[in-house]
C-alpha cells in the first residue's frame, strides 16, 4: 500500500480526534453553573474564603485561553485552563466523576468498558455473518421468496429502535417463556462451583442482549449486501464466468461475493456511530452494566465529566474503527489508494 495514502488517512484521523478534544473543552465551558459549587457540593458552612481557595486549588482563577485580550492589549498566559486541560487529556487524565466521589472518570469508564465490548463485539460478529449471508442470498435469488421475505423483514428491522426490539425479546423469552435471565450480567448473589458454571451463567445473561443487537444490525447489513450483489452480478466478468460454464454456486462464492463485500466494509465502519446509539438503549433495557447504562446514569445525575469521558472514548473508538476500515479497504481495493 502506498505510504502517502496511509499517512494521509492517519493525519485525518488525528485531526478529527484533535477537533473532538477541542469540542469537549468548548462544551464544558458552555455549561451553566459554577464548577466550584459542584466540587463543594455537600460541604457544610462554605465561606467565601473556602470558595476562593477552591477556585485557586482547581485552577478556576486562571484565564481560559493562553492568549488574553483585555484593555492593556494582548498578553500571553502560561498558566491557563486550556493548556492544562490539553495536557491532562493527552495524559489520559479525564478528571473526577461528580457522582462517584473520589473516583476518576478513567476508573469509572474502565469498570464499564468490557461488558460493552463483549456485548457489541458478539452482536456485531453475528450480525455481519448472518446479515451478509442473507443479503448475498436474496440478491442472488432476486425476486424469489427468500428475497421478498428477507427484504421486508430487513426493512422492518431497520425501522425498529433497538430498545423496542429488546423489550419485545425480554417479554417473550425472559418473562413469558422464562428461557433466559433478563437482568444484568450474572445472577445476583450467586456462588459458582467453578469457572465453567460462571461462564454458563454469563452466557445465559448474554443471549437476549446479544440477540437484540444482532437483529438490530442484520437488517441494514442485508440491505446493503443485497444491492451490492445485484450490482456486481450485472458486471461483465460475471457474464464471462457464466459463459465459461462455471456452476452458479462457484460464480457466487468465487466471483460475486468477494467483490460485493467491498462496499460493506466501509458501511460497517460508518454505521458504528449509529450502533453506539443503539448500544446505549439496549444496555438500559437489560440493565447491562456497560457504557450505555453508565451514560444514562450520568445523564440523569448531570455528571458532565463522565458524559464527556464517554463522548471522548466513543468518538475516538469510532474514528479509529473508520481509519482501520479505510486501510482495510485500501488493502482490498487498489483503486482507492490515490
Amino acid at each position, binding site marked *: 500500500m502506498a505510504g502517502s495514502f496511509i499517512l494521509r488517512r492517519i493525519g485525518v484521523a488525528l485531526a478529527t480526534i484533535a477537533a473532538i478534544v477541542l469540542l469537549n473543552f468548548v462544551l464544558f465551558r458552555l455549561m451553566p453553573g459554577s464548577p466550584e459549587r459542584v466540587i463543594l457540593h455537600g460541604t457544610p458552612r462554605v465561606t467565601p474564603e473556602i470558595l476562593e481557595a477552591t477556585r485557586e486549588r482547581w485552577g478556576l482563577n486562571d484565564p481560559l485561553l493562553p492568549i488574553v485580550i483585555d484593555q492593556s492589549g494582548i498578553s500571553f498566559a502560561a498558566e491557563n485552563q486550556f493548556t492544562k486541560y490539553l495536557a491532562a487529556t493527552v495524559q489520559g487524565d479525564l478528571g473526577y466523576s461528580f457522582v462517584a466521589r473520589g473516583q476518576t472518570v478513567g476508573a469509572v469508564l474502565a469498570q464499564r468498558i468490557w461488558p460493552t465490548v463483549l456485548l457489541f463485539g458478539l452482536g456485531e460478529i453475528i450480525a455481519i455473518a448472518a446479515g451478509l449471508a442473507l443479503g448475498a442470498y436474496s440478491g442472488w435469488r432476486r425476486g424469489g421468496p427468500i428475497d421478498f421475505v428477507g427484504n421486508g423483514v430487513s426493512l422492518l428491522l431497520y425501522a425498529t429502535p433497538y430498545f423496542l426490539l429488546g423489550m419485545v425479546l425480554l417479554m417473550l423469552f425472559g418473562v413469558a417463556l422464562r428461557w433466559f435471565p433478563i437482568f444484568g450480567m450474572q445472577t445476583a448473589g450467586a456462588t459458582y462451583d467453578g469457572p465453567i458454571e460462571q461462564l454458563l451463567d454469563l452466557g445465559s445473561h448474554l443471549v437476549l442482549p446479544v440477540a437484540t443487537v444482532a437483529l438490530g444490525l442484520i437488517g441494514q447489513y442485508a440491505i446493503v449486501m443485497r444491492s451490492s450483489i445485484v450490482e456486481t452480478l450485472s458486471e461483465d466478468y460475471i457474464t464471462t464466468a457464466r459463459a465459461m460454464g462455471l456452476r452458479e454456486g462457484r460464480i457466487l462464492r468465487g466471483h460475486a461475493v468477494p467483490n460485493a463485500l467491498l462496499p460493506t466494509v466501509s458501511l460497517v465502519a460508518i454505521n458504528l456511530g449509529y450502533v453506539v446509539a443503539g448500544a446505549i438503549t439496549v444496555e438500559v433495557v437489560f440493565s447491562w452494566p456497560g457504557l450505555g447504562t453508565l451514560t444514562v446514569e450520568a445523564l440523569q445525575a448531570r455528571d458532565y465529566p463522565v458524559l464527556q469521558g464517554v463522548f471522548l472514548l466513543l468518538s475516538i473508538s469510532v*474514528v479509529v474503527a473508520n481509519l482501520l476500515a479505510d486501510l482495510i479497504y485500501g488493502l482490498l481495493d487498489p483503486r482507492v489508494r490515490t
Partner: protein
Amino acid sequence: MSAGVMTPSELRRERWRLRGRAVRAFAGRYARRRDGILGAGILAVFAALAAAPELIVGPLQTAVTATGGRLEPPAPGFPLGTDEIGRDILNLTVHGARVSMVIGLLATVITVVIGAVVGIVAGFVGGRLDGALMRVTDFFLVIPTFVLALILTPIIRDLVGSGSREVFGIRMTLIVIVVVIGITSWSSTARIIRGQTLSLRERAFVDRARVVGAGPGSIMRRHILPNVINLIVANAVLVFAGAVLTETTLSFVGLGDPFQPSWGQILEAARASGAPGLGAWWYFAPPGVSIVLVVFAFTLVGSALDDLLNPKRRVRR
C-alpha cells in the same frame, strides 16, 4: 402554441403548463410503485392522527383526568389498556403521533436547510471554503452524533432555561431536541447536495447566467437550487425517518418531556414502570408499532422517490 415571440403572460402560462405536465408525469410514475403507495398510505393515516388528535380521542389525559385502573389490559372503554397511573394508552398514542411527527418535521426542516446551504455553497464556490466546509461535514459524519446530541441537549436546556414557554405549540424542552437533532444530522445531506452541485456547476446554463452578469448568490438561488430540489425532497423523506428515530431514542434515555409525551417518551415510561417484565404488552406495543410503521413508511416513500428523482440512480436503471 404558435412559433415566434411569446408575450410575458403567454410565457408564464406555458411555464405552468409544462410544470403541471411534469408533476402529472411524476405522479403517474410514482403510482406504479407499489411500495411507494403503501408507504404513502401509512403516512396519510398517521398524518390524520397527528392533525386532529382531540377529535379522535379527546384531550390528552393526565394523572388528574385519568379514569382507568392501574396497568389494565385492553377492555371495553380502554381498547388498548391503561398505563401505571390509569391513563388510556390509545389516548396517549394518538396524541404522541402529533408530538413525534411535529418534532420530526421541524428537525427535518432544520437538517435539510443546513445541509442544502452547506452543500450548494461548498460545491458552487469551491476552493478553500469548500475544503473548510467539507472538513466540518466529515467531522460530523464520523463522530457518533447521537452521543453529542445526548450531551448538547441538557447543556442547551440549562442555557435557555426551559420553563413552560411554547413555540408552535411545542414545549421549549422539545424545541431544544429539535434544534439538537437539526445541528447534529445535516452532514450526509450536505455531502449529497454538494456532489450534485459540483456537476451542475460545469453545465452550460450556469456559464450562460454568468455571462449575462448574474452574481454567485443569484446563480445558486435561481439555477442550482431548482436543479437540486428533487434530490433535497428525496433526501428529506429519509431524514424524517432518521429524525423520528433519534427523537424516540433521546426520549427513551430520559430526555423527553413527560408533559408532552412523544412515542419515545411513552416507551420510556413503559420501561420505567416495568411493563415488559410485568407482561403489559399493551403499554409499549401501540407506540412501538406506530414508530416502526412510520419509519418503515418513510423508508419506502424515500427510496421510491430516490429511485424516481435522484439523477444518479435514474441513469443506472
